[in-house]
């Protein structure tokens, strides 16, 4: 009798133990297929043609259906995506890229070199980064069914990083789609990505569904590459331009994920048990671009005077609000990148009013009104301008602040008679040759001969150590010449339901390898 009851107790205790030790938390649970993801975006994209524009929101959406030959891993280094392998030959002048075989487009056709050639050629004609690359390219063509070849005019350090660009991406479309587009935008959004485009109703939604025949890479996910699994049946991108509505809608459960959330809501949203707050580091940095073609800021001393007066901490705090969302940094490439350097940091954040006044006098400033352009469309542009304006006026500048809508700013900044300073954000660049504020063609017209020469050298050099030295030299000249005012780096807040799992916090967001845990 005793043994039997003992045994019985043992079994009960054992079962108890087994039940209690069974993991109830969903942390280690398996990803589930199915469901719809509702993503609230900050605007209606002008298009979802991946080649067409540099607006970052276009990448956010089109990366789900469009892929490129190379992409970036989680350290922002180049890794192959649609490319299988590559060879550099003839002293760095020939890049032979072998494509993966058996990769289907959404229309069932297999991707071949003809598609790659057509797509990259188009991209090379319309994309800023593409045009830069192709200026070094002598010829680019398909060699055989799965091979393409770049022949360069000289050695170049930017081939792979250009092809891995995560903005205005060199995405691969079927040749027929490129031919059909002609000089305009593509009309069919067909790519090789894990999600298939279904429909776009402007100002209402953009719909994608899972592409069942997606040819995934085998490596584990890293950055924007590696294995991609589409767990969701459907993704809906919803344009919700008003940030207060984006927040309210996510809090009420209407949206699963929302981008570009105002940092001031951070503390309150962090406390919400149903939501996860994600700080995206890095994102962009704020710059005040001087018009160096015509006007008072053709004078270097005046630019230096403006720089001396500024207290960057106050500017960034005014621009962004919460200290978790900005950092003071004088580097033109982010801390998270291998290119980071603090060369020139003595010039940054001087907050020296006396020196500024002195430089103003030396520059011969006679009280001319400075036309300062910004937009409310991105509130940090306006806010940083307002703080900077007060600081500059305190040392004697006269500033006429013009707050316009974004379309007007974009148009006016091409006309040197219309402004003296405009404010914008510098996005993430994979390679320092793409930093727009150093470009002579870009508004602001940073046409400094020493920088131009160094940039050409940078584009042609292939070894990283040598390139890094050149880059440090460029940044040194930058902080002496002050072609633009860099205020600081800012981060953004993303919001998601706690039930959304698997999301990787990278500079741009994407939804493969993401699922909802109910």
């Amino acid at each position, binding site marked *: 009798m005793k043994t039997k009851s003992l045994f019985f107790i043992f079994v009960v205790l054992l079962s108890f133990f087994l039940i209690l030790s069974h993991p109830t938390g969903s942390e280690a649970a398996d990803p589930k297929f199915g469901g719809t993801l509702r993503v609230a975006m900050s605007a209606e994209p002008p298009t979802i043609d991946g080649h*067409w524009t540099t607006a970052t929101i276009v990448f956010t959406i089109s990366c789900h259906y469009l892929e490129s030959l190379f992409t970036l891993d989680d350290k922002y280094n180049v890794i192959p995506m649609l490319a299988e392998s590559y060879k550099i030959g003839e002293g760095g002048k020939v890049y032979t890229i072998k494509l993966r075989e058996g990769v289907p487009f959404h229309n069932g056709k297999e991707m071949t070199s003809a598609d790659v050639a057509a797509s990259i050629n188009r991209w090379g004609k319309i994309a800023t980064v593409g045009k830069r690359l192709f200026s070094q390219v002598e010829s680019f063509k398909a060699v055989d069914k799965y091979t393409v070849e770049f022949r360069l005019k000289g050695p170049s350090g930017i081939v792979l990083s250009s092809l891995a660009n995560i903005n205005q991406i060199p995405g691969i479309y079927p040749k027929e789609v490129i031919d059909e587009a002609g000089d305009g935008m593509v009309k069919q959004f067909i790519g090789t990505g894990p999600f298939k485009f279904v429909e776009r109703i402007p100002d209402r939604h953009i719909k994608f569904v899972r592409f069942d025949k997606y040819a995934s890479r085998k490596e584990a996910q890293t950055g924007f590459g590696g294995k991609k699994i589409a767990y969701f049946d459907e993704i809906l991108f919803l344009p919700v331009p008003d940030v207060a509505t984006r927040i309210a809608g996510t809090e009420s459960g209407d949206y699963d994920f929302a981008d570009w959330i105002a940092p001031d809501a951070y503390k309150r949203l962090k406390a919400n048990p149903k939501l996860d707050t994600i700080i995206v580091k890095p994102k962009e940095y704020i710059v005040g671009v001087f018009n160096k073609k015509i006007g008072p800021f053709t004078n270097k001393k005046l630019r230096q005077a403006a720089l001396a007066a500024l207290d960057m901490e106050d500017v960034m705090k005014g621009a962004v609000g919460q200290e978790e969302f900005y950092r003071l940094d004088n580097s033109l490439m982010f801390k998270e990148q291998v290119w980071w350097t603090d060369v020139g940091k003595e010039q940054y954040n001087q907050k020296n009013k006396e020196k500024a006044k002195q430089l103003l006098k030396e520059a011969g400033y006679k009280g001319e009104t400075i036309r300062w352009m910004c937009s409310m469309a991105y509130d940090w542009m306006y806010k940083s301008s307002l703080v900077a304006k007060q600081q500059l006026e305190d040392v004697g500048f006269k500033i006429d602040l013009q707050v316009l809508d974004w*379309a007007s700013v974009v148009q006016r900044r091409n006309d040197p008679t219309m402004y003296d300073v405009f404010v914008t954000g510098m996005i993430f660049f994979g390679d320092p040759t793409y930093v727009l504020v150093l470009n002579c063609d870009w508004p602001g017209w940073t046409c400094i001969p020493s920088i131009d020469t160094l940039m050409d050298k940078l584009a042609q050099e292939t070894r990283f150590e040598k390139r890094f030295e050149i880059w440090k030299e460029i940044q040194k000249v930058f902080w002496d010449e002050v072609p633009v005012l860099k205020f600081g780096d800012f981060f953004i807040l993303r919001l998601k339901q706690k039930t959304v799992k698997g999301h990787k916090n990278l500079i741009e967001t994407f939804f493969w390898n993401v699922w909802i845990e109910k």
Partner: protein
Amino acid sequence: MLGYLIRRVIALIPVMFIVATVVFFLVHLIPGDPASVLLGPNATPSDVMKLRAQMGLDKPIYSQFLIWLSRTFQGNLGESIFLGRPVTRAVFERAEPTLVMLTLSLIVAIVIGIPAGILSAVKPNSWLDKTLMIFAILGVSIPTFWLGLNFIEVFSVLLNWLPAAGYSPLSSGLWKNLSYMILPSLSLGFNQSALIARICRSSMLEVMEQDYIRTARSKGLAERLVILKHALRNVLIPTVTVIGTSFAVLIGGAVVTEIVFNIPGIGLLIISSVLRRDYPVIQGCVLFIAAAYVLINLIVDILYVYIDPRVKYV
């Protein structure tokens, strides 16, 4: 009467022509153009020039106007630059939320306004009258957007009774649609209800002084009957007038309300089109709204003939 009608309809033509002219030139005066917006912030000026030529924006403005005008006469409002679909289709796709909101607002305005006005008039200078009239003044003075914001904070965020923003189409269910539409309609309608209440009250007061009412009363007819039969009839006139002019005000208020509540209606369409410089859509929407306004006023004027026997159209 028929002659009057025909003359009014013919008079619509110059009015619409003026609206069309004003909107076209106004919109084309706005700095910036759709080509540069479409190409994005880093396009070169030569890219923009090329696209502008493709869009026909490089032709002299007068010929662009005449082209647009002649197409419009044939019923073709053109294609939206950003939405890639014909303007008429774009407008119809977005019309439902705005129409629902306008209808509900008008219902709110009438349902609150008329009874309030009548009640005040029945007992003039009583505490009821004074309270209602204070609310009326409040209603006319309160900014619609501020009212909307406060509604959202109280009913959505604090009490969580209703969704904060957005829209659910009628096809997805009436109650769900109403849950999104109640707060915006209340914000919009409150203002108009105040107007209707005041006008109702003053017309009623005036009418109740009239001889024939006094006669009816002295004959001993029940108070209620007196009011209902005689006074109401006369109240209809100014009330219908207000409803006619309300439409114009409501459209303006609708734009702001759609922004506050993020409702994808015609108001938001116009705003985003202005920001994107989508000329055909802005022009098309304005024409639609103006046409609706003019038609509604015409209907109101015709209704006058039936409800006020003293009105004669010469």
